[in-house]
């Protein structure tokens, strides 16, 4: 087992496209790190650079103590699980798992032992003679994991492994992956665009946007204190509400565009007088009586999810861009057209500089 380290890693494609703008990070031994970001943000490229499927333009990637930039994928002692599983269609499940070991001239009985063990862990015992074509999506996913496990690698690399599964199976496999990684204690790097997957699986998260790591931290750190507007909008579902306004003259609050009352939560001292972006998550808004409300929202649409409902609306006198989503208790009936008076949880208000998108602290 070993950790993983990125030192000033950059990637420029031959056609001049810059995919990664410099990543510095250390993943400690046994840690589960999830790289999350929208498509095209460079997360897969980063993973593929660790795997050795893409060259590193600049910087260094270390697995354990060794620089691996120049090593062939097979010599890096990593195992990768692909989005479409990439199982060899003409080989049995057993052969799929054993292929890598055979290529490394592992003794026959050792191969049999490891495959049997992995098959046991993944409940594939009865399927070892089947071809991938005869398996369900979830089973194929397990075989792909088995192929990674039998290698007993220093690190697992997962490239959106669950995105081809249906929603229910995805939740189930998510738990299995987490359990398995705990049990094996293997350092893992996991790429996904699904922020729920990211939050639930990660020991630490890397939120990437346009080739830059916007924030690195534990899921809750990132949820509680997103470093940028992008992170704030990307992590959390439904997404955080952003309201623009100005810092109140006495510095003790913010005047939101389209709201009658001043939001009485003091922006951090570093906030200059002037424009400011206030972020409030839907779950941190609470319907209250008119007198104590900080915001008033005209309801446009209600999505009832059962346990709770998502209320979409606009600030009462808001112009463009003052859309607000509120998460309310499912038992509460809200109708379109209604005016909802909302209180704000003061500890959960985020302030951002509207110019560079950075969090104000």
């Amino acid at each position, binding site marked *: 087992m070993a950790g993983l380290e990125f030192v000033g890693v950059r990637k420029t494609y031959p056609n001049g496209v810059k995919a990664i703008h410099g990543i510095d990070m250390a993943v400690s031994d046994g840690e589960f790190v999830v790289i999350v970001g929208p498509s095209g943000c460079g997360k897969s490229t980063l993973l593929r650079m660790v795997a050795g499927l893409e060259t590193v333009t600049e910087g260094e990637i270390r697995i354990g103590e060794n620089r691996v930039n120049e090593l062939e*994928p097979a010599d890096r002692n990593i195992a990768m699980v692909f989005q*479409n599983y*990439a199982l060899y*269609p003409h080989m049995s499940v057993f052969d799929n798992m054993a292929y890598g070991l055979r290529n490394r001239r592992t003794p026959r009985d050792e191969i049999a032992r490891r495959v049997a063990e992995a098959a046991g862990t993944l409940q594939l015992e009865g399927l070892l003679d089947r*071809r991938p074509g005869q398996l369900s999506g979830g089973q194929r996913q397990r075989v792909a994991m088995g192929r990674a496990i039998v290698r007993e690698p220093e690190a697992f690399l997962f490239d959106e492994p669950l995105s081809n599964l249906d929603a229910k199976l995805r939740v189930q496999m998510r738990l299995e992956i987490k359990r398995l990684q705990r049990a094996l204690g293997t350092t893992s790097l996991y790429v996904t665009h699904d922020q729920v997957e990211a939050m639930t699986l990660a020991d630490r998260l890397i939120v990437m946007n346009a080739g830059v790591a916007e924030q690195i931290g534990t899921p809750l750190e990132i949820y509680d204190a997103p470093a940028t507007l992008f992170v704030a909008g990307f992590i959390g579902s439904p997404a955080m509400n952003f309201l623009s306004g100005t810092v109140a003259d006495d510095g003790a609050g913010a005047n939101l565009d389209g709201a009658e009352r001043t939001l009485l939560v003091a922006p951090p001292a570093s906030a200059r007088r002037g424009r400011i972006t206030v972020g409030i998550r839907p779950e941190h808004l609470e319907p209250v009586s008119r007198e104590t409300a900080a915001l008033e929202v005209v309801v446009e649409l209600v999505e009832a999810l059962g346990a709770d409902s998502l209320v979409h609306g606009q600030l009462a006198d808001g112009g463009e861009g003052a859309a607000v989503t509120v998460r309310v208790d499912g038992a509460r009936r809200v109708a379109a057209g209604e005016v909802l008076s909302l209180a704000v949880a003061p500890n959960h208000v985020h302030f951002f500089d509207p110019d560079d998108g950075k969090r104000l602290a």
Partner: protein
Amino acid sequence: MVENRPWLTVFSHVVLCLGVLVTALPIWIAFVASTHPADSMLSGRTPLLPGGNMLENYATVLGSGVKAAGSIPVGTMLWNSFVMALMIAVGKIAISIIAAYAIVYFRFPLRKTCFWVIFITLMLPVEVRILPTFGVVASLDMLNSYWGLSVPLIASATATFLFRQFFLTVPEELAEAARIDGAGPLKFFRDILLPLSRTNIAALFVILFIFGWNQYLWPLLVTTDEGFYTIVMGIQRMLQAEDAEPAWHEIMATSMLAMLPPVLVVVFMQRLFVKGLIEQEK
């Protein structure tokens, strides 16, 4: 079609039956002719039912050849044709699959150019380049040899193109997974790509074998030694019997024999086809 139109059904069946009749009748007549004694074919009335000389006729052509044409035994010609067709089919597949592998999976300078150069040769069939090719084969001393019969016909742009198209449909992740599993280029080719191409190889083999078997012009040019005559050109020579009527019964027997191997290849390989198609998956 789910439409229920009885007359349309009847009509299409009639058309199909006519088609079968048009195709099958000449073959039937050839077969019937091959079972009659020599004179019944020359009497002016073509028999439509098999006669009693079948074993005799076939034994003659296989054993000693058509006397009147001074021809060698059909067995030898069949063997020559078989060797030539097999060498052409196997050679074409071997060379084109390797060429396609190089073009699809390796990044080398002028890769695109190489592909297009191969592709352009599609426009140059044997007949167009027959004189220079003959010159080359003659100067390499390959006249009257199996190599001379097959090598010039082996390069195949069509097969290369087909394999290229197939390789492009193989997911890239498969190659990447193999790289991580420690398979080098040759191992990947042998362990993954070749087994996956099995159905394509089978299909191409059928087509190319028949292509090779039916070669007429080229064998006619490069063979002067009777021992290397192929069956397709052999039949034609039988017709040019000097000072005698063509021995139709024996010629027809030879034709039937000449048709047999391609039919067998199709029948046999078809099973492999279907098997491969069932197992194939996305």
